[in-house]
């Protein structure tokens, strides 16, 4: 029963979030601020993780392809498809759920316990919409850029590791990256990135918005935001894969 109660509450929260804004220009400036906070400030971590994961996938694939009949370009083909299909959308989303999700839940949760949300309500502002909508919009605008960036950097990391370790030559790697390329895989990754951006921001904002108590509860909400966002992302990953690829 508790689960269904929370799901119902989440959808009521979303209805409040997507109500007509009081003044569009105020939301515009909030979106710009959130683009920097949630998007630009996440570039660093996405770059670092992408380059290393690309490198690790290359090395592991090279180690596991021991049959001399398999051409070396299969290594970069595997790296490319792993990154396009799964890593740059799902794994990056899980990492962002940790970074961005906890940030959103703790920010909104702190505003709740220090009565800043009550102050917004007293001003006659739809606080759920004012706080959550710019974050959802900013993440949905910026996450596709992060995903595309992660795709490029992940493959670049694979190329550096592959060539540096001698597992594959530069020509073989580039040939493998181009071999049997399916452009739809990029679109599939971007669709997933959009859905996951929505999940991370809305689930985290929901957890922060309904905090009651003090700093301990804000910490709990922050943890819940990361756990619930991650679980929902993994669940929708299966659904989207069945819908878009099966």
């Amino acid at each position, binding site marked *: 029963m508790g689960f269904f109660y929370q799901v119902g509450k989440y959808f009521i929260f979303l209805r409040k979030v997507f109500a007509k804004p*009081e*003044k569009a220009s*105020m939301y515009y400036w909030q979106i710009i601020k959130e683009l920097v906070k949630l998007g630009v400030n996440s570039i660093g971590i996405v770059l670092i993780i992408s380059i290393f994961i690309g490198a690790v996938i290359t090395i592991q694939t090279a180690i596991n392809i021991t049959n001399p009949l398999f051409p070396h370009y299969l290594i970069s083909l595997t790296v490319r498809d792993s990154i396009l299909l799964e890593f740059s959308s799902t794994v990056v989303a899980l990492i962002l759920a940790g970074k961005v999700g906890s940030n959103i839940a703790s920010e909104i949760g*702190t*505003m709740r316990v*220090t*009565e*800043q949300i*009550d*102050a917004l*309500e*007293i*001003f*006659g*502002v*739809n606080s759920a919409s004012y706080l959550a909508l710019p974050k959802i919009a900013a993440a949905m605008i910026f996450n596709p850029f992060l995903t595309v960036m992660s795709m490029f950097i992940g493959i670049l990391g694979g190329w550096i590791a592959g060539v540096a370790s001698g597992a594959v030559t530069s020509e073989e790697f580039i040939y493998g990256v181009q071999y049997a390329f399916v452009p739809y895989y990029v679109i599939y990754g971007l669709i997933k990135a959009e859905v996951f951006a929505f999940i991370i921001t809305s689930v985290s904002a929901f957890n922060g918005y309904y905090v009651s108590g003090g700093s301990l509860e804000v910490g709990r909400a922050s943890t819940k935001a990361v756990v619930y966002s991650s679980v929902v992302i993994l669940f929708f990953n299966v659904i989207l894969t069945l819908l878009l690829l099966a």
Partner: protein
Amino acid sequence: MIEIKNLNKSFGNKPILKDISVVFERGKANLIIGQSGSGKTVLLKCIVGLHNADSGEIIYDGIIFNKLNSKEKREIRRQIGMLFQGGALFDSNTVEENIMFPLDMFTDMGLEEKKERVDFCLKRVTLINVNKLYPAELSGGMQKRVAIARAIALKPRYLFCDEPNSGLDPKSSIVIDNLIKEITEELNITTIVNTHDMNSVMEIGKKVVFIYEGEKAWEGSNKDILESDNKLLNDFVFATNLTRRLKKV
């Protein structure tokens, strides 16, 4: 004027407010007093609609507030200024941005006009050169004064203050009390102040409502308190040696 009729509120099975009826008059500082946990804050939050009352009526100048839909409630709330216990200033905004927030949201004022209004409100609460500071850079008393400035930015018809003196030294408390009193009279607004600060009661309490365990136990003016023989009120108001001496004088 704000009128409360037979207001009841429970959390789960625990009744918090029991059949409260009271009238808060315009142009006066109306004080709600009572022990911690007596239901003062819940009453205030019911009046502004942050909590939904279980039964009863909350009437703002003839409009039954708790029967309105959320959009209509928002229209009334735009005429409300509220000073929260902790100030509730937006941490990530400067003082100027905090005061400008309601102006940005609900007026079509130009930037210069808004800045003039911010300066006027800050001057009214005797603060200067703090426009670019963040709330964390201000003392507790200054934060409360900025919160008052923000509350009056839209020229409200109703002002609510929840424990405005909590955490302040006596001198800062007097400054805040006088500000609330002066603003109430200047703007001729209905002001309700939640407090358990006896100095406030004696200084600005033109009308005082005493809440005891969720029920209205007494109402009158600050002068009436000294004459009252209500035991519950006397036990609360004259709890310290200093106030007991005052009663005897």
